[in-house]
């Protein structure tokens, strides 16, 4: 909504207030001023002057030399000017508009000192057109006798205006009008409306009209509460829009179209009530039928667009049942007012807000009319708006013939009443001392009517134009916003109860972030959107369970058409971004959610446990009720990516260091140690799990478990995927990790229980032995560790660390050699060499027996 400052001044008394005061008052009362812009048509000295003498120009028949008198704008001293003028009506004695040197007229017309055919001219006498007052350009503008010399023409005609742009919130449909805004402003500034005459009285019906009133019939289901119409004929096609209407429409951001359309718009801006003017010729029988459309019925709108209607849309038809308007939204091309229209039908009506909104939304149309109806238009303003339109038309066309007013009203609804308790208002607002009188004054000035008062409880009638006022709290709001939020004190709410416990996932995930950052990773936050294309580049085929992404109904772009069901790909995009900017070796992490189709989980019966875990109900912190409520599961995940190279070449190291699986394993072990997660185990991909994780390198990636809980996956990106994402570095590929944060937390909570049982500080010395063995290639490190830990000796072995791994021809084919540092320790006493030797013997025998290991 854009206000004209001049117009506002015409409606209410703002003599005591500056433009700034008013803008502040508007913002402070909830009608936020977004912009306030000067709308000057003319600048510089354009003033009232009087022609003293007029002589013929010696060198031109059409021109005159005028001596013009005025007073200086600031000093008030009398001044005379010599002006060359060509207007036929220029004559001594008339008061005129003089544009002095330095003035700028509309369309950037700059007034300079000039010589016209040898005679100098110190300015210009202006026509109404040149001043932008009206289209009149027959001669210069003649001012009234009593116009004060030296007075600014801009002030005299209200040519210099300010456009105040308001951001009206959707609850305040009433403030989409000059009158509505003025009402709030009166309450806030404690000023009043200027007394304006009843628009009805301005209409002169001297003779009884010999014109039939329009016929109206309204279908009950059509969502039409009121319909008023009048017919006006004998409007000459020569009429022109009055300049004040033209100027104000322009300031309000509307284009002047034609006199009748301008009047319609002007009255809508003034009263807030949308209306429509039809060419009566095109409305058969001057008859309006308001009904619901038939399915697939077609209609061409004013703007030339053809739409196909449905049963829910309300339409207005003529006597032949053909549509002339889409009710409350837009008129039709067929019945539009044209240049030669002399006979019109005026419609001012009330329509159901929800019906209008549905129709406007469906067709993607937002008009001044639909915008207002959606926000609620008061039935009280109908007659006022209609009379104003009639009045303005009659002003332009005094000879026009006006029919009696035809109308339809659905049953009247008695106005809402709401009780207001003063103590409640004081308690809720924090305004302990606000008086009954202040409240009453504020509500009165906003148009509320006090019906009753019992002690501190008052009963209020809510005016029709405030459908947003529904209960006591709304009245409290009205009082406090007008009284001023700035008058409310600052207080601190006391704590009356111990705080609720916090979900452990919250501090766990913050801790996780801090640990990742300490381990060298940079935290990313990315949009969780994905697309089929991303899946293709991850080798995820059409039949893969992950291909069923949660799709958006209204995505912003094809590449963002779904919600991600894997977290690490968005980090691959970030790697690409950095690569494109010449940055290699980026290490990123993100803690974010994956969105999974719950429906899918049920169709996963024939895939592995690992994959079911991915969709499992572990996602309970944010998706507890997801299944019952039929919405996607949300799984909080951690993703890490490592671009190659891990480290560039350095002054102390000649070639770049590449990241490999063991490096990332080390990082992950540090991570789980920092977070207190139990011991991790790493399981190679099997033939079936390879298919489920097609984006992982089949041999250099693994699944991660803590005890028996599935934690996630980690390893090298599949070379094909790496190629598709264009992330190869020489022959190596990025490494990726994606873990389930909720499973990590679960494991942490399990581990914490065990930790409490055994916190022992070692006090006795440690005995160390080295063990070097040769085993078959198939034996894993874990096999050996398990054998060592479970050896049948007295179990003083407390720590085993691999320090050498060797394969070579000297060992024979299919063999490898491993060397371990073993630590023995008892927390009861110092172990003797004999004891340790004995235990070593048992260990060697067990290794030999179980794994065929030989001492080297």
């Amino acid at each position, binding site marked *: 909504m854009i206000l004209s400052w001049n117009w506002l001044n015409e409606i209410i008394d703002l003599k005591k207030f500056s433009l700034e005061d008013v803008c502040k008052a508007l913002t402070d009362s909830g009608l936020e001023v977004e912009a306030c812009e000067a709308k000057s048509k003319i600048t510089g000295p354009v003033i009232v002057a009087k022609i003293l003498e007029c002589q013929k120009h010696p060198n031109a028949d059409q021109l005159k030399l005028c001596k013009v008198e005025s007073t200086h704008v600031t000093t008030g001293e009398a001044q005379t000017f010599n002006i060359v003028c060509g207007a036929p009506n220029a004559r001594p004695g008339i008061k005129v508009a003089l544009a002095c040197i330095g003035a700028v007229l509309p369309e950037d017309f700059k007034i300079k000192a000039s010589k016209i055919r040898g005679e100098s001219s110190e300015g210009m006498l202006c026509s109404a057109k040149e001043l932008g007052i009206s289209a009149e350009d027959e001669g210069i503008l003649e001012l009234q006798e009593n116009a004060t010399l030296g007075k600014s023409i801009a002030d005299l005609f209200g040519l210099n205006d300010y456009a105040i742009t308001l951001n009206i919130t959707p609850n305040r449909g009433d403030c989409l009008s000059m009158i509505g805004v003025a009402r709030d402003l009166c309450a806030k500034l404690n000023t009043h409306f200027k007394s304006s005459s009843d628009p009805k009285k301005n209409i002169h019906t001297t003779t009884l009209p010999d014109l039939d009133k329009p016929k109206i019939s309204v279908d009950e289901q059509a969502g039409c509460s009121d319909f008023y119409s009048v017919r006006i004929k004998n409007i000459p096609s020569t009429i022109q829009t009055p300049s004040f209407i033209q100027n104000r429409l322009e300031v309000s951001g509307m284009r002047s179209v034609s006199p009748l359309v301008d009047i319609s718009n002007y009255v809508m801006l003034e009263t807030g009530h949308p209306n429509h003017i039809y060419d009566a010729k095109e409305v058969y029988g001057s008859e309006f039928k308001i009904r619901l459309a038939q399915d697939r019925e077609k209609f061409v709108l004013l703007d030339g667009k053809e739409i196909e209607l449905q049963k829910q849309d309300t339409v207005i038809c003529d006597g032949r049942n053909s549509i002339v308007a889409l009710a409350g939204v837009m008129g039709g091309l067929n019945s539009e007012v044209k240049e030669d229209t002399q006979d019109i039908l005026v419609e001012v009506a009330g329509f159901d807000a929800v019906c209008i909104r549905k129709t406007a939304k469906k067709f993607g149309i937002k008009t001044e009319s639909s915008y207002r109806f959606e926000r609620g238009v008061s039935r009280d303003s109908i007659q006022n708006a209609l009379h104003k339109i009639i009045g303005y038309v009659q002003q332009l066309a005094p000879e026009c013939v006006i029919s009696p007013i035809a109308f339809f009203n659905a049953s009247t609804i008695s106005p809402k009443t709401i009780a207001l308790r003063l103590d409640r208002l004081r308690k809720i607002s924090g305004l302990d001392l606000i008086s009954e009188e202040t409240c009453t004054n504020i509500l009165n000035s906003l148009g509320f009517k006090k019906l009753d008062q019992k002690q501190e409880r008052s009963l209020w009638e809510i005016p029709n134009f405030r459908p947003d006022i529904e209960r006591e709290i709304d009245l409290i709001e009205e009082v406090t916003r007008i009284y001023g939020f700035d008058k409310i*004190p600052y207080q601190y709410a006391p704590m009356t109860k111990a705080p609720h416990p916090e*979900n452990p996932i919250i501090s766990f995930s913050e801790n996780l972030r801090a640990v990742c950052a300490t381990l060298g990773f940079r935290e990313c936050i990315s*949009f969780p959107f994905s697309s089929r294309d991303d899946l293709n580049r991850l080798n995820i085929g059409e039949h893969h369970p992950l291909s069923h992404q949660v799709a958006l109904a209204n995505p912003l772009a094809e590449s963002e058409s779904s919600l991600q069901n894997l977290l690490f790909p968005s980090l691959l995009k970030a790697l690409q971004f950095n690569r494109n900017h010449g940055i290699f070796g980026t290490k990123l992490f993100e803690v974010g959610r994956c969105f999974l189709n719950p429906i899918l989980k049920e169709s996963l019966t024939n895939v592995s446990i690992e994959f079911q875990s991915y969709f499992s109900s572990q996602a309970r912190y944010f998706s507890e009720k997801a299944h019952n409520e039929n919405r996607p599961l949300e799984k909080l995940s951690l993703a890490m990516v490592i671009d190659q190279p891990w480290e560039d070449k350095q002054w102390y190291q000649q070639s770049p260091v590449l990241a490999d699986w063991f490096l990332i394993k080390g990082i992950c072990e540090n991570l789980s140690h920092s977070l207190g997660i139990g011991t991790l185990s790493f399981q190679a991909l099997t033939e079936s799990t390879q298919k489920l994780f097609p984006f992982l390198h089949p041999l250099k990636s693994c699944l991660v478990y803590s005890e028996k809980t599935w934690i996630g996956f980690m390893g090298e990106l599949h070379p094909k995927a790496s190629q598709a994402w264009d992330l190869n570095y020489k022959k190596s590929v990025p490494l990726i990790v994606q873990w389930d944060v909720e499973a990590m937390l679960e494991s942490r909570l399990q581990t914490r229980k065990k930790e409490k049982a055994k916190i022992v500080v070692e006090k006795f010395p440690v005995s160390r032995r080295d063990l070097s063995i040769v085993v078959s290639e198939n034996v894993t490190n874990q096999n050996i560790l398990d054998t060592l830990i479970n050896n049948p000796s007295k179990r003083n072995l407390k720590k085993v660390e691999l320090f050498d791994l060797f394969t070579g021809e000297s060992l024979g084919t299919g063999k490898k050699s491993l060397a371990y540092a073993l630590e023995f320790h008892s927390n009861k006493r110092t172990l003797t060499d004999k004891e340790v030797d004995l235990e070593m013997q048992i260990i060697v025998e067990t290794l030999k027996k179980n794994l065929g290991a030989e001492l080297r």
Partner: protein
Amino acid sequence: MIEKIESVKLEFLKQSVDCQKDLQASTLENLRLNFLGKKGKLTELSELMKTIEKEQRPLIGKSLNELRILIEGEIEKLKTALNDRELSKSISGKALDFSLPGKRSTSLGSLHPVSLVRYKLSEIFKRMGFTIYEGPEVDLDFYNFGALNFADHHPARDMQDTFFLKSYPNTVLRTHTSNIEIHAMLNQGVPIRALAFGRTYRCDSDLTHTPMFHQMECLVVDEGISFAHLKGQIQSFLEELYGKGIKTRFRPSYFPFVEPGAEVDLQCAHCQGEGCRICKNTGWIEIGGCGLTHPNVFEAVGVNSEIYSGFAFGFGLDRMAMNMYQLPDLRQLFSGDADFLKLFPASFNE
């Protein structure tokens, strides 16, 4: 015997002087073995003691002992001298080039500015007795709109451009963190002092809007909560965040789930409210919405609105991060640009 002792002493003194001239670890060790070793001269002398008569033993024993002390002391001195010489050798030469880059086994990473601000805020609010909550990012219309007093087909719904899902009717990407208010009240009941953070979504994308952004949400419900408490809570946490002396302004506004509702403005720190480019000459910077919880919201979650009242506010976390770190471009936050990310610390406790 005394003579023998005397001659060993002289021999030692001579040899020790020689040894000192060209001090070597090997010659020093030889010297030690020669006199103190198992077959050394002092051991020889000691063995001779058996042959000495009883009366003479104390006297001879004494001088033998004196000799031992002398030899041991002298050898210790030489050892120290040798050690000192070796040490001084190792610290000769030029100083290091301290300008060479340090060797780092792992360089530190960094935390996202939004995380840093979130952590800071949660520290402040936890101290004030708040509990932190989270909630679904994809939620039912009921939690995101319905329970928050957004009537069906009300134009208030246009205030937030909403993402809808294809196969889930009545499900939206949450447009604000206010859905957490509903979940928290339903799960935890009242009184409540809740703070929530989270990602939120609106289908809007331009220079100053991203389709995903972050909000913080605060909800306090108890008996006798007033607008004055709302003002106090906001003022006090902003003072903790930005320092004492900041000024706030509360402008009436409209959000369906609060009444009265207000927008909160912070006086522009750049111009101290004089008006500048940053605050678009208004002197104020809009930071979020707030208000008293609407009774309709209480009724939707089964809380008696005659007994309880409450306040809520929701601020944009991204903008707060931008304020705190003087960041010029919102979109930078979500680009994953390593050059940008590396500007931030790896620890929450800056």
